[in-house]
């Protein structure tokens, strides 16, 4: 047989708790623990838990490895949570574990990084890849209004969101007249979310391309680290790093005038919405089909789109004018 024994029993117990007045039990699993970004998203989840009366737990390994996350998820299932809120470190690899969870009656919401479509009910996407790409290029133009040469730093060759961002940015620069002033270095460098490595690459990129104007990274570790390297190399204000960054890690750069803009979204709100969506799935107010509406109160209402995707799509560009508004 290909069916895990005992999983049907789990279904029964999970559906009993659904819909009743019992507190929903929701686990949030980031890619891995210890990263400030996920910690901010966790706060959002905890806020939602407070607002909606959810039994909320934050689980995960501190190892940035797919197998570690799979272990975490596998061991979450027997604890019978009502829902899992997951940022998938490897969307395909965790899919079987998530499918197993769904078979056991557990609702699955992904946030930040999606898993295979069949493995989850809803994906709360912070930004569509294309919008993220656009926003990053906008931030690049804010830094270097006259355009110039752009280079990319990604996390790893196997991070699908980074790869998609780069693909769209290249496309936009090639086709969109708005970004025509920007050119790009075709080879992507990889820093594995490591600050030291990011700095080394930033320095080497500046050497490799004397006319380099902007380094873009969708890694919240690499972008600030690259900016730091630029400043330390005495190129602050001439070369710019931008891309995804927590405001707390770039506040000094922006205030000192070395950098004009970074971008992100509000991870707390993202975590909030994802948790709310999970709760609504558990309660049965939504099922995850196209057209359902996730009502996250003050955080807004979002319509479920194709393939269960909910687009949060509220990019933030941090500039000297607004950075103090964002305390995360």
């Amino acid at each position, binding site marked *: 047989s290909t069916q895990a024994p005992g999983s049907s029993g789990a279904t029964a117990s999970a559906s009993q708790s659904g819909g009743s007045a019992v507190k929903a039990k929701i686990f949030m699993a980031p890619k891995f623990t*210890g990263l400030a970004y996920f910690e901010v998203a966790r706060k959002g989840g905890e806020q939602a838990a407070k607002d909606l009366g959810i039994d909320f737990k934050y689980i995960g390994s501190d190892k940035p490895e797919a197998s570690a996350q799979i272990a975490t998820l596998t061991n979450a299932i027997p604890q019978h949570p009502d829902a899992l809120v997951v940022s998938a470190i490897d969307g395909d690899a965790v899919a079987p574990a998530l499918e197993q969870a769904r078979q056991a009656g557990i609702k699955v919401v992904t946030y930040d990084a999606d898993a295979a479509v069949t493995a989850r009910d809803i994906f709360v996407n912070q930004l569509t890849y294309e919008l993220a790409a656009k926003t990053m290029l906008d931030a690049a133009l804010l830094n270097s209004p006259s355009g110039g040469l752009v280079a990319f730093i990604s996390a790893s060759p196997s991070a699908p969101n980074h790869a998609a961002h780069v693909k769209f940015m290249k496309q936009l620069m090639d086709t969109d007249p708005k970004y025509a002033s920007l050119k790009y270095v075709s080879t992507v460098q990889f820093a594995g979310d490591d600050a030291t490595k990011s700095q080394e690459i930033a320095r080497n990129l500046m050497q490799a391309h004397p006319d380099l104007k902007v380094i873009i990274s969708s890694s919240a570790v690499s972008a600030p680290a690259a900016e730091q390297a630029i400043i330390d190399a005495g190129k602050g204000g001439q070369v710019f790093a931008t891309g995804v960054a927590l405001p707390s890690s770039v506040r000094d750069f922006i205030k000192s005038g070395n950098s004009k803009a970074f971008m992100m979204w509000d991870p707390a709100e993202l975590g909030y919405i994802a948790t709310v969506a999970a709760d609504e799935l558990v309660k049965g107010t939504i099922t995850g089909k196209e057209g359902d509406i996730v009502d996250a109160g003050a955080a807004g209402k979002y319509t479920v789109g194709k393939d269960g995707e909910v687009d949060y799509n509220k990019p933030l560009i941090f500039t000297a004018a607004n950075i103090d508004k964002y305390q995360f």
Partner: protein
Amino acid sequence: MTASVQTVPERLKERLQISGGSAALRIRFMGVLAFQALLMVVFTALVPRFIGWGNVQSILFTAAILAMVAAGQTLVVLTGNLDLSVGSIMGLSAYVVYDLASQAPVLKPYVVLVAIIFGVVLGAINGFLVAVLEIPSIVATLGTLSVYRGFVSFYAHAREVSVGELPQWARHLASANWLGVSAYVWLAVALVLLVGFALRTLPWGRKIYAYGSNPRAAYYYGLSSRRIVIGAYIGAGVIAALVGLLLGAQVGNINSLLADGIELQVLAAVVIGGVSIWGGSGTVYGAAMGAIVLATINNGLVLLGVQEFYRLIFQGAAIVAAVAVDALVQRRVQSATNRRAIMEVTS
């Protein structure tokens, strides 16, 4: 049975003197230099900008941190052991020390001192596990790698120490240029020379070489293996803790993963630099050159616009090539040696 005879043929003696010994060991350092020169020639031919002053500086800056940690690692490798926990010590020192300093400003002037204390304690724990509890070093420091890193993560709680919280002098140092060269490069040069000098002229250093060359002989000579090994680990720990501060200041936003995984790069630098993984031979200068070789490879491949995969493959090949040269030299030393006992420990 009292015939007076010539011992070993004179010409054999000469042969031994040339093939064995110092010549070969010295050639080892020249080997790294030659490899570096070859890299530079190739890269310059492919990308003329490679040899520009700005680029050279960039390479040296990258190499500086690695070279310093490698100098510490060399102390341990010379004793025939390994320290896989240096990255964790760096991360722990950087995060905890800077965080303490930003929480309790009275500590700010003592940041360096606090880091040294951390280095001594963490290094001594490693040394104790290896020398007293006799846990093979690779196992012991694999354990402390996890434990020290676990401690930082525990302490950090996913928070970052941001650039603004760092002491001003540390930030200044990270971007300072002295005589047109980054302060870190000067610090690295100073540290490598200092460690090299200490290894060469302090009894402490000579005992490290002696112990690593033949631990059994050291035992017979009454050298305390415990003191020597713990001393080497403390040296490596203190250097790692101090360099952690430098790296932290350089990175700016410090999270609990700072320097995670750097131990393999450091080990690669040491191995490429011709420090024998069997202990007893090699210099910190070689290890520093090894760091420069690694930095050069990374830099050159970025300049060439080569994909990440090739960097991994190229670096791996460089490591294997370096140890191959090392083994050749080692074999010469060995072949020139009494097979019976003297080199037995190293084979």
